[in-house]
Every structure is written in structure tokens, then in C-alpha cells.
């Protein structure tokens, strides 16, 4: 770390997060809710197998300021895709850079704004969609905290029929010891629109901070939204991410999370298939090492007939890493001809690694197709021998098999440039130790 960051640590402007209070008066209700909700307990089904102790927030401060040296360093490191439609970079919830959307898109009514500007200039539209779906997988207290603090992140509004070809990107950096940030991504895609959005969650090496992120996706009829989140906080960070996706008639949502960072990372993802013909693809790739714990909770809610959801989560675990996957498919009464699929695969690279899988089904409609399955296993000896027999050394053989295992998920995105970018992040993490 640069000395400048240490100075920030000592800054009197940083207050304890738990003493921070609401961001403005308008955030007071959320703050009260945060304070009144109980801390998670392991006896709660939504926190079963979770290391609750990891969630202690008392040591963290409110978002810390960024000095000029750090700002320049982080901007230089914010390299996304070779071609994107727009890019914003935030660090410690401060906007560092904004590469705006093309004029042609703005003329067609596309809005892409930092959160504060969205609240100021498009308040009604923004508030009509901001955190409108409850966090129902256990993280309500964190969602309330987020709502009381959210100042950074972006609001993307894509009007009816507008298709944005290139991905839009946002970087969120968490830097400085013990700081916290609250990245928010809100995407409203009106009927027949199309967009791809990539969030990069990054921290400079070994920063121990707290990130509490929310990303909500709203898909109008026939909209197509692809959302990617590269969670690459430092291995010392504590992170919580809460997602809800509402899928309209004949709309298609595709979301992929790559979990690389955090000592404890909680991810809650809910897909509401709200109107007939909707589809949601829920994808995740995790590489967990050392004593990392990646805690993933999902909910595929079929609220209308003829809807489809397809979940594929793959975890590669090494050392004494732990993962928890708890996923529920619910087919509500009347949601006939639902097609729901859920698959979790764990690849264990060490005897000490531990993968917990809790798949579940609740079916209250007829004529549905639901399948789920969770598997855990090690690299197969015969597979490994095949690579060795070609002269590929043991470590390299294991690497190839692990990458191959994870690659299937990245390919499901259907975007070569993004898959390559994510691949590079995976490789950088895995290669650092192997």
C-alpha cells in the first residue's frame, strides 16, 4: 500500500460504519430497518452452514476518501473489454471516471447515470424501480444497510426497442484498510430492448474491506439482458451481493457471477419469472482457495406459465475452502408448463475442501418439468492420466482440467470477448498458487 492510503486511515473524516447513520434524511427509514433487523443466525434456514462470525461489521468504517495517487493507480488498472459502449469507474463509492454512452444512444433515450445524478434528475423513474423487490434469501438486513448508504453505482435505462450492441462496464474498487462500499447496479430494460452489462468488483492486493452490493434487473416484454459480475475483491474482503431479476413476457435474462475474491462472500440471487414465455439463465463460476468461504443462495420463482429457468453453478475448491449452495425452485400455482433446471457441480482439489449443496423444489402446478442435481467430486484419475500420458506435467494437467470444468459456464454467456476476459481473471487467480 502507498503511504497516502495509511494517511487516509488516520483521517478524522472516517467514521465507524455502524455509527454512520443514513446517507440523507431520505435514507432514514432504511437505516432504521437495518438497525432493527436481527443479525443472521445459523438456525435460520437461509444461513444454514454459513460462517456467521465472518459477518461482524463492527471493525469497518464508512466509505473512505480517495487520494490523487490512488485515483491515478486505480484508473490505470481499470482495463475492461477492448470495446465497450460506456464505462464508469468508482473507488470507495466515489466516481473517478465516466466514459459516456454514444450520442446516438442518448438521443434514443438511453440513460446511464451515476446513482446520485439519477436520484437528482430522474427521481421518479429511479425510485419506481430502486430496490422494489425484497431480499428474501436471508440478506434483508444487508439490503437495508445498502439502501441506507447507496451513493455509488449506476442506473441504466434502455427504452423500448433500443438495442445496445457493445457491453457497458462499471468498475468498483474497494481500497484502504477497513473501509466499506455499497455498489449499486439498476438496469431497467423496456420492451424489446437489449443490453449487456459488466460489473467489475476489484480491490488492490490484500485490502480488508467490506462490500455490500445490490444489483437489480428489470426486463420488460421481450427484453434481453445479460448481466455479468466479476467478483474479484481481495482475499481479505467481506462481501455481500444481493440480486433480484424480474423477467417480463418472452424476455430473456442471463446472469453470470464469477466469484474469486473475499474471505467470505455471500451471494443471493432471485429470478422472478413474472409473465409467460420468460426465461432466466443463472450462471456462476467460483474458484475458492485457502480458507475462503463462498456462500451462494438462489431462488428460481416461476410465477407464470410457460416460463423457463436454467441454473448452472460450478465451484472449484482448493485448500480448506468452503462453499455453500442452497438453491430453491418454486413453481407457483398456475405456472403450468414450467421448465426449470438447476445444476451445481463441485470440483474438490484438496481433501480439506468442503462443498455443501442444498437443492430444493416446491411445485404447486401441473405439467411442469423440473430437474435438479448437485455433484461433488475430485479430478478423475483416468482423465488425469490421459493428459499425463501426453507429457503434460501434473500441475499443468490439473490446471487444464479445472479450467475446462469452469469453461463450460463461461461459454454459456455466448460472448467471446467477455468469456476471454473472465477466463483471464480465473487464470490469474488459479495460476498465482499453482
Amino acid at each position, binding site marked *: 500500500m502507498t503511504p497516502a492510503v495509511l494517511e487516509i486511515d488516520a483521517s478524522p473524516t472516517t467514521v465507524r460504519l455502524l455509527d454512520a447513520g443514513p446517507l440523507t434524511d431520505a435514507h432514514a427509514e432504511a437505516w432504521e430497518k437495518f438497525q432493527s433487523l436481527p443479525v443472521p443466525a445459523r438456525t435460520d434456514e437461509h444461513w444454514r452452514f454459513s460462517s456467521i462470525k465472518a459477518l461482524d461489521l463492527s471493525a469497518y468504517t464508512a466509505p473512505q476518501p480517495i487520494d490523487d495517487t490512488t485515483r491515478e493507480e486505480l484508473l490505470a488498472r481499470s482495463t475492461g473489454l477492448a470495446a465497450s459502449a460506456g464505462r464508469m469507474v468508482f473507488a470507495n463509492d466515489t466516481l473517478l471516471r465516466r466514459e459516456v454512452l454514444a450520442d446516438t444512444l442518448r438521443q434514443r433515450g438511453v440513460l446511464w447515470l451515476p446513482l446520485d445524478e439519477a436520484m437528482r434528475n430522474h427521481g421518479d423513474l429511479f425510485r419506481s424501480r430502486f430496490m422494489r423487490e425484497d431480499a428474501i434469501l436471508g440478506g434483508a438486513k444487508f439490503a437495508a444497510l445498502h439502501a441506507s448508504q447507496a451513493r455509488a453505482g449506476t442506473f441504466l435505462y434502455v427504452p423500448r426497442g433500443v438495442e445496445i450492441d457493445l457491453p457497458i462496464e462499471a468498475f468498483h474498487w474497494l481500497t484502504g484498510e477497513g473501509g466499506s462500499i455499497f455498489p449499486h447496479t439498476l438496469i431497467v430494460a423496456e420492451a424489446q430492448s437489449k443490453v449487456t452489462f459488466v460489473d467489475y468488483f476489484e480491490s488492490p492486493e490484500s485490502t480488508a474491506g467490506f462490500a455490500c452490493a445490490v444489483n437489480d434487473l428489470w426486463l420488460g416484454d421481450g427484453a434481453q439482458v445479460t448481466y455479468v459480475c466479476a467478483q474479484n475483491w481481495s482475499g481479505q474482503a467481506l462481501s455481500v451481493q444481493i440480486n433480484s431479476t424480474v423477467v417480463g413476457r418472452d424476455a430473456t435474462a442471463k446472469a453470470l457471477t464469477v466469484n474469486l475474491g473475499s474471505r467470505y462472500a455471500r451471494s443471493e440471487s432471485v429470478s422472478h419469472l413474472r409473465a409467460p414465455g420468460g426465461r432466466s439463465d443463472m450462471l456462476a463460476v467460483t474458484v475458492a482457495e485457502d480458507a475462503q468461504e463462498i456462500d451462494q443462495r438462489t431462488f428460481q420463482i416461476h410465477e407464470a406459465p410457460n416460463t423457463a429457468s436454467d441454473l448452472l453453478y460450478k465451484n472449484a475448491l482448493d485448500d480448506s475452502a468452503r462453499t455453500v449452495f442452497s438453491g430453491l425452485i418454486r413453481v407457483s400455482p398456475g405456472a403450468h408448463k414450467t421448465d426449470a433446471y438447476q445444476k451445481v457441480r463441485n470440483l474438490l482439489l484438496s481433501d480439506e475442501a468442503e462443498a455443501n449443496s442444498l437443492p430444493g423444489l416446491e411445485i404447486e402446478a401441473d405439467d411442469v418439468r423440473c430437474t435438479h442435481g448437485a455433484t461433488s467430486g475430485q479430478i478423475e484419475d483416468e482423465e488425469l*492420466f*490421459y493428459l*499425463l500420458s501426453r507429457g*503434460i506435467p501434473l500441475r499443468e494437467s490439473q490446471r*487444464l482440467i479445472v479450467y475446462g470444468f469452469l469453461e463450460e459456464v463461461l461459454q454459456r454467456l455466448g460472448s467471446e470477448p467477455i468469456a476471454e476476459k473472465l477466463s483471464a481473471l480465473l487464470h490469474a487467480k488459479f495460476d498465482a498458487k499453482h
Partner: protein
Amino acid sequence: MNALEIKDLHVSIGDKEIIRGLTLTVPRGEVHAIMGPNGSGKSTLSKAIGGHPDYVVTSGTVRLDGVNILDMAADARARAGLFLAFQYPMEIPGVSNANFIRAALQARLPDGEELEATDFYAQLYAEMDKLEMSRTFTARSVNEGFSGGEKKRNEILQMAMLKPKYAILDETDSGLDIDALRIVSAGVNAQRGPGLGALVITHYQRLLDYIVPDHVHVMVEGRIVRTGGKELALELEEKGYDFIKESLTTV
């Protein structure tokens, strides 16, 4: 000596001894065939020489150009010049065929040296053309969803790219229709020459019509019981393995 020399080899799987004192020398430049009934230990021999950890060599030696390879790990044996064409090639999901072969070639280069990509693809495409393989096989995952014939062609492709000194082809003819057999055999024959010693393991004589061996060995119950020229294969085809077994019991 430039040869694959197997001397008094004993191999067990668990408590069961499968190879029981097998001796065989394949000089570079020659093609030898091992024929034998099911259960005679043919596949065990190839896996044991390849270094599969489940196949325990209890005594004997295997030398590659004079160097004992039994102390080496499987990957080191391969880099020393050994190649195994599998009877049942494994599927490796998510690893493209091109990257797989590339990794194998890269492993043969000195540290810090990078494989030249343009040359690699030029060579890969040329070898694929010889085996009548479509270019789509470069991007597809190794053997995943390949037909039996495509898997075997892929084995021969790898062999062509890795240029081993010695190759053991384990039941390469199994699961092949006549067209695939012709293509695969042509692929092997194209690699014949003074630089390669090959051991072709087969149950049926048919393959040896296409890959004509210099010598034929008959394996029964973990040993070589007869050795002869290519005509021995025809004799076996005609009389069956029982004739060998009977001649053994009479001795």
C-alpha cells in the same frame, strides 16, 4: 540400443498378477504386433508401460533407448519419447483439442521458450487433412461427443504432432468401421520410418492387413508364447487362439 526393451516384466493390479514375466524388444524403425485373446493382459501391458499408477510393476525393467523409464512419472515417460494410443480415449470437457495438443508440445520445450503459434496451426491443419478431420475439431473439447472413429483419428493426430520415438497402439481398430480403419491405418503408416518403433496391440488380424507388422507376438496369460513373422497373424486368424493354448498345454 535404440529400442523399447521390456525384460521379465511382472505387473499386478491389486493382488492379481496380470503380466507374468514378459520379455519383448521393439527396435526403432520396426513395427511389432501383439495379438492375444481377451484377458491375456494386452491392455495392462500398455498402461503399465505408460505409467498408470493403478498398474504396479513388481519386477522387471522397461528401457527406452537404454534408459529405465519405470522410475519416471507418466508425463516424464511421454516426454522421453513414449506415446500411448488409448483403446478408450478420455473426454476432457472444456479443453479444446488445439490447446490440449499445444500444452503437450509446450511441455517438450525448454523453460521460457514459447511454442510458435503460426507454425503449430500450420502443422496441425496439415496432419488433420491427412486424417480427413474437419477443422472444427481444433476448437471442440478433447474427444467430447466424438464418434468412436473420430476418437481414434484424434489419437493418431496427437501421435503425429508429438512425434514419439515409440508408440503403443492399444486396440486401435476396436470400434472402427472399414473406412475409419483405412484412414487411421494410413495415418499410422505415414509415420512409419527409422525414427519410430511401434507396438500394435490387437485382438483381430484385420488391422494387420492395413498396418503390416515386421514381427508378430502372441500373448497368453501375461507372457509372450510365440513370435513369428506377419504370417503368424494369418495362422491365428485361421486356427484361432485355442490352437496356441492347446499347443501350450501339450508342452
